């Protein structure tokens, strides 16, 4: 996982709790690395450990936390890579090009980034079917990211997802 995700997670914790909370998480999780910089890659396990410690310390449910982290993360990612996002005037066209353009660019900027695979199918101007394929299996994170995306474009969104073998199929409606 790239350092930028750790940085975003840190901001997420500090925003919802405080500096002390992040300090506690770092200490309690006993991870080797405590300084994360965006261009470097760190072991996925470190992220998982930090996340789990946070859930335990603050008594949070994992699903909801991932959703709200995803929502928060999108705003940060969009800010960081505004040149990628600015080209789009609606969330559906962005999702259509997420796999073919945005994450491709992300992998150029962040050497060694492992982005998931997405297959997007536009139904009409408001509806989209999105299949999420990843060894990391984080459908709740995707859900949150999509909410964040809707926030970004000032849209209302409703979605359902179901597991489809190893993958997850999202039915999304933006209004």
């Amino acid at each position, binding site marked *: 996982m790239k350092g930028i995700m750790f940085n975003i997670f840190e901001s997420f914790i500090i925003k919802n709790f405080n*500096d*002390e909370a992040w*300090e506690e998480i770092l200490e309690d999780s006993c991870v080797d690395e*405590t*300084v*994360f*910089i*965006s*261009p*470097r890659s760190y072991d996925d396990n470190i992220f998982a450990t930090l996340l789990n410690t946070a859930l335990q310390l603050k008594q949070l449910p994992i699903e909801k936390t991932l959703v709200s982290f995803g929502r928060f993360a999108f705003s940060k990612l969009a800010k*960081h890579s505004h040149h990628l996002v600015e080209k789009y005037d609606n969330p559906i066209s962005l999702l259509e090009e997420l796999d073919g353009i945005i994450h491709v*660019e992300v992998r*150029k*900027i*962040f*050497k060694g980034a492992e982005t998931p695979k997405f297959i997007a199918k536009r139904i009409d101007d408001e509806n989209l079917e999105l299949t999420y394929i990843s060894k990391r299996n984080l459908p709740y994170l995707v859900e949150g990211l999509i909410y964040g995306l809707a926030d970004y474009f000032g849209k209302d969104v409703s979605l359902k997802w179901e597991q489809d073998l190893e993958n997850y199929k999202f039915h999304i409606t933006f209004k």
Partner: protein
Amino acid sequence: MLNEEILKKKLDREKEARLLLEGEIEKTTRELFQSNEFLENIIDSLQNGILILNSNRELVKANKTFYQMMNIEYGDDLPPVESFIWEDCESKPEHELENGVDYELYLKNIDGQFIPVYLSQSTITNNKNENYILSFKDLSEIKKIENDFASFARFNPAPILRLNHQGKIIQMNPSAEKKLSESHPEKSFLDLFKKTDSQEILNLSKNGGSLSETILLGNEYYVMSFKGIPELNYIHVYGFNITQRIKSETEKQELQDELVKQAYSQGVAENAIQVLHNIGNVLTSIMGKITTKNESEILNRNTQLLSQMASKLESPEFRQEMDENKLKQLGALMKELSSYFQSHQSIFFEANNYIAKECKHIGDIITTQQQYANLKTQIKSKFSLEGIIQDCVVMHEHRIQKRNINLIFDINDAEVFVEKIGLSQTISNAIVNAVEAMDEDYALFQKDYYYIVIYTKRNEDSVELFIEDNGIGIEEEVLNNLFKYGYSTKERGSGFGLHNCANYMKNNGGKIEILSGGRGQGAITKLTLPMAKE
């Protein structure tokens, strides 16, 4: 944990992150520079002609600019290195050049033309081999300014001189020669000035700006005006004979017109140089920041690298040919570092923010300048009022921001039909006056809030532009004299004073008025301009 403890830990981590990021930047930059293609692209995009020689001083690479200077098709064979350096010059580059020294010499191109250049050498060590980089800066433009000055001076009845940074006369026109030998043959020139400190005059060569003093030469009175040209390290001195003015009130008008004409043409010719002074000012203030915060030296180095690289990266033609991914990584890293600086408060970062911002500002000034530098005519044209206002603001943004002045716009754009440079100078003048009025006010009253409001009002076939400030204001008695020639309340005249502005506006079918309720009441400069016909 105590709050302080947390804060300290956080700061420690931030510091470590910063160091890591810097390391990452260096690494990526190094990787990039190691790829030859990258190096070649950078070299090709430079404004100076570049030659790279190997340790045996054989040519490895010449960049596009160099080919252009030589007038040879890019990629064609170049003549041997020694042949295109003018044989008569004192130092030949194929012999020991000292690194970092500028040599002034001529480059002989394929058509046999001699191009004046500064040559400087630097050495880079690459895999234990020494390479030499020769950089040729084309001086043709500067030489042209010098020649223009010389021909402008030669036929001018007024004494005109050029001093070097030590105050020695290095060029003067016949009139100056005659006046000086008649009246003060034995004295050094600067000794003629009793009121003005010589050191202040010499500083002009470094910092730009102008100064003037009235002196008696023989039995005639001259206003001698000094103007610093920092690019060339010179001081230009113009003498205006004001004997007649003093002697006879009746001839005053004629003389005035003559002087205005002279001042105007000087103003136009020197417009280009003026804005370069602004750049100099910004750079000087950056240098100031750098030296006051010595701990940030390393960061400064990175920030400078950062902004240089960032601007390189932004040019599209440059990007195309690059190893896309590497470049993008670097671009992202640099953004990261700079946003990192921005989001942390401590003097450390403040200095860097400042530098990054100022670098952009320099860029803006240069762009603006480039537009006007080519426009040395007095021809009227049609253009957007808002555009020129923005340009003028960019030129003076530095001063405005330095004094924390709020700048408010309410502009309803209109196309005007006037001579552009004069208008830019008139608006600049109004802005500078407003800023200075606030300086004075601040010294006395220290108000909490200073503003300049720039707004327009459209009439049927004219548009009124108002530049309003809440500075020190102007007394009635001063208001009545403002537009008279030579009238100034300032110690340092601007070279294109209100009198010239008024003349300019009149010649262009407009008018200038200055309104103020009195001392402490702020002031408004009101320009009425003819609108362009459809």
